[in-house]
């Protein structure tokens, strides 16, 4: 008998859709770190990310029949995690002035651009220093793959505002990454 732990995502997703909790548990264990990473970048808080991912996975289990392509279950889960993360962001407003304080993900300590040793470190530092709204738009666009419309819906704002925030985020990221090179 082959272990479920080694099964491909698509098969586990199919079994989960049929109500196999053990198969869903394997998916949860396999993808939890990635989902937490996305949620942490979005919310800027590991504690919020934990809550958002747990909420999202319980919601996902209840709506597996809406999963179109079982092979893309991680992308599907990422979308639900993004939604639960933005729910948390909305519910904790207003808190804008303090947001930069908790923009640092996890326990890793400050990511200083000045001592960045790789492009990824440089980007991590730039993203962390972006205003919260810009960072969220950026992550939803570039990591979750959302359209402007979808971002506006998720963040409870308008497409022109999303477009403006993305443009400012992009200008900052672009120029600082160019300077770093």
């Amino acid at each position, binding site marked *: *008998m*082959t272990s*479920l732990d*080694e*099964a*491909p*995502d*698509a*098969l586990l997703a*199919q*079994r989960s*859709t*049929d*109500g*196999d*909790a053990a198969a*869903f*548990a394997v998916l*949860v*264990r*396999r993808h*939890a*770190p*990635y989902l*937490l*990473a*996305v949620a*942490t*970048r979005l919310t800027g808080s590991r504690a919020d990310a*934990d809550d958002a991912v*747990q909420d999202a*996975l*319980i919601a996902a*289990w*209840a709506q597996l029949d809406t999963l179109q392509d079982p*092979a*893309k279950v*991680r*992308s599907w889960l990422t979308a639900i995690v993004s939604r639960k993360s933005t729910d948390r962001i909305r519910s904790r407003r207003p808190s804008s002035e303090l947001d930069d304080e908790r923009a640092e*993900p*996890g326990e890793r300590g400050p990511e200083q651009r000045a001592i960045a040793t790789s492009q*990824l470190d440089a*980007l*991590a530092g730039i*993203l962390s220093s972006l205003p919260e709204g810009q960072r969220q738009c*950026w*992550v939803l*666009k*570039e*990591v979750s793959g959302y359209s*402007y419309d979808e971002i506006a819906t998720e963040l409870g704002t308008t497409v022109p505002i999303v*477009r403006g925030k*993305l*443009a*400012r985020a*992009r*200008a900052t*990221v*672009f120029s600082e*990454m160019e300077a770093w090179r």
Partner: protein
Amino acid sequence: MTDPSANGIGGTGYTLEQLGEYLDAGRQPAVPAIDDSAECQAVLASLERVGSLSRELVTRDAAEIPALDESWFGSLLGAITREVKAGRDIPLASSDPRTHLSITEGAIREVVRAAGDSVEGVLVGRCGLHETDGAVRVELSISVLLGTPVRQAAEAVRQAVYSELLKHTELAIDAVDVTVLDVHIVAWEGEQP
């Protein structure tokens, strides 16, 4: 936010913001002035690069997250197990007309999966149940470990499912249809974002 040059990037009149939106629109509809400008192409490539770096960054973040302890999963998996997907009730034949016995689709699927998985090198994927006049047709797809003889595996699954269902459910079984969906190797391959 806009290009410092009044004439735009590469003298095209297009700003960084506009190039970003062009990229987001999948470079459609095509703008020849942008597509023919080496400077614009370089900027577009850089913008794509920071986009893919962002995805790499999240992948790296994920790898650096310390192992999650069981308490992290505990309440989550508990909530999932509690919300059992029982599905419809399917009636069982009964010799006593005063009693009505039934079994849930969820319970039947559990039996089918366990029977199929018990065959060496086989994992069950989908499991469909179709009831007509009290008789049930079972359709299941299986994935077979590379190197396992496919035809024998499918037949072994069919027999195992049939006999386990008879043993545990007293269902009237019309047919057990097994489809071999694919062949898997041992290690799972992660989905590319």
